[in-house]
């Protein structure tokens, strides 16, 4: 049995905003909102066979919290209402959904995540593991994906550091040349 306690994986991804707006599980008005959103919550793709788009359990409450903390920002979920489905996974850890955000909006999102992480730590001190996948849109359409699993109190520092470091590396590079991984 392998129980990961801390991991950070950063990679370049070609799954940009247009990709999420044109999936089979989204159409019409929902696609338009995806293109216009400040903060976009996207599904886990084909996470389980026969389930093309799923969100971790608690996504609804997470979205509400995010909207409450960032009332000025347009927050959207990239799926049609009738296809929304959450997955309850094994193990006691907090799994937040994948969020797509521009580099410009990232500090606001990090502040909101800091608030949510504080709440988790307050309720379950010393035992709260958080898992989140963050897609950051940089200049020239470059996107990086940060996959974090670890203590809640290290989350926002790690996301900020990795996003800053990796996005600046990509700035002068032609889009989608090669994938880089830390």
């Amino acid at each position, binding site marked *: *049995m392998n*129980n990961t306690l801390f991991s950070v994986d950063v990679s370049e991804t070609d799954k940009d905003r247009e990709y999420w707006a044109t999936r089979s599980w989204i159409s019409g008005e929902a696609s338009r909102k995806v293109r216009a959103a400040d903060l976009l919550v996207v599904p886990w793709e084909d996470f*389980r066979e026969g*389930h093309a788009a*799923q969100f971790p*359990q608690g*996504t*609804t*409450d997470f*979205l*509400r919290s995010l909207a409450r903390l960032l009332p000025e920002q347009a927050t959207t*979920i990239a799926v049609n*209402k009738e296809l*929304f*489905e*959450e*997955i*309850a*996974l*094994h*193990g*006691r*850890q907090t799994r937040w959904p994948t969020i797509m955000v521009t580099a410009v909006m990232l500090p606001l999102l990090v502040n909101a995540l800091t608030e949510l992480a504080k709440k988790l730590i307050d*309720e*379950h001190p010393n035992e709260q*593991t958080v898992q989140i996948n963050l897609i950051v849109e940089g200049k020239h359409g470059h996107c990086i994906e940060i996959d974090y699993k670890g203590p809640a109190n290290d989350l926002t520092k790690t996301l900020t550091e990795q996003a800053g470091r990796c996005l600046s590396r990509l700035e002068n590079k032609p889009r989608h040349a090669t994938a880089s991984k830390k």
Partner: protein
Amino acid sequence: MSTLDAIDTCLLRLTESMEGSLQSDSLQIWNELESVATDLLKRAILDGSDGETNRAWHLKTVASTRTTYLTSFQLMRSGKYYEAWCKLEEAEISLISLKRNRIYQSSEFAVDTLAKMVKNWQSLYPYAVFMSPEFAIKREECSICGLVVDPWSDCKHEPGIVYRGKECYRIVKTAELLGMSLVPDPVQKYSVPFIKNDQGERHDHYDYTVVSFVVDRLRSAVSGWTPTWTKAYHPHELFKDIGPEDGCPCGSGRQYGNCCNSNRGVLRPHIEIEFDERPSALLPNVTLAGYKERLSSEKSTWVDSRESDSQSNNV
């Protein structure tokens, strides 16, 4: 008597029962208090304000949590360890609700102290892995307003928060079971895997020596004790059946002969318990857990070789 007066009377009774944080360990008293608080909550839901109703919920939950904890202790005393484990989980969940819906200071009802005691008991249990199901949740509803809960819903209730004396939770209406796994940190702690005997009945194969060591030495369910997890040398006599080329019982992954064999013992997990009240002198102050299949005579030799005048006991 008005609802508010009834709440104050109940509050006073609960406070008196907790004089000095964790004093009363009488299950009878706490059952009675729970009954009073439950009636109070029913009454408050009918004619109380939102604030009064939530205060009544808080008092009822304090009483029921204490009853659950005391029941758990009694079950441990009577050797029903798994049943006690389930009660500890119930108490743990209620304590999280109390902390999330703070009305009184948690020190007033020893909520934090009790949460620590529950955690300490859980740490003594031998369960290492648990069954955990995986579900695709297609439709769920709010327990308070009954509305469907999804990102487009108008429901404003938050799970875990108390509204007019009722805690909000989600009711899963449509779901698909996707799989089952063994995990070390389960959502449901009660899902302990057991083996079955030849008759197909559940057989509890776990070694509860550490739990019984502590529960036997406590004067009451509310007596204080503190565990300290460390490592200690275990005598080589306990590992006579392990050859020098076998894996070292310390778990390092190296051969026994190249690892602990040349040391004064095998470095293994060890726990020291500090009791606030001195345990009975008739009970040994050291015991070995996890070796009962291996031998018994060496156990007594090792136990007898330890100091016995300390208030700190070892497992």
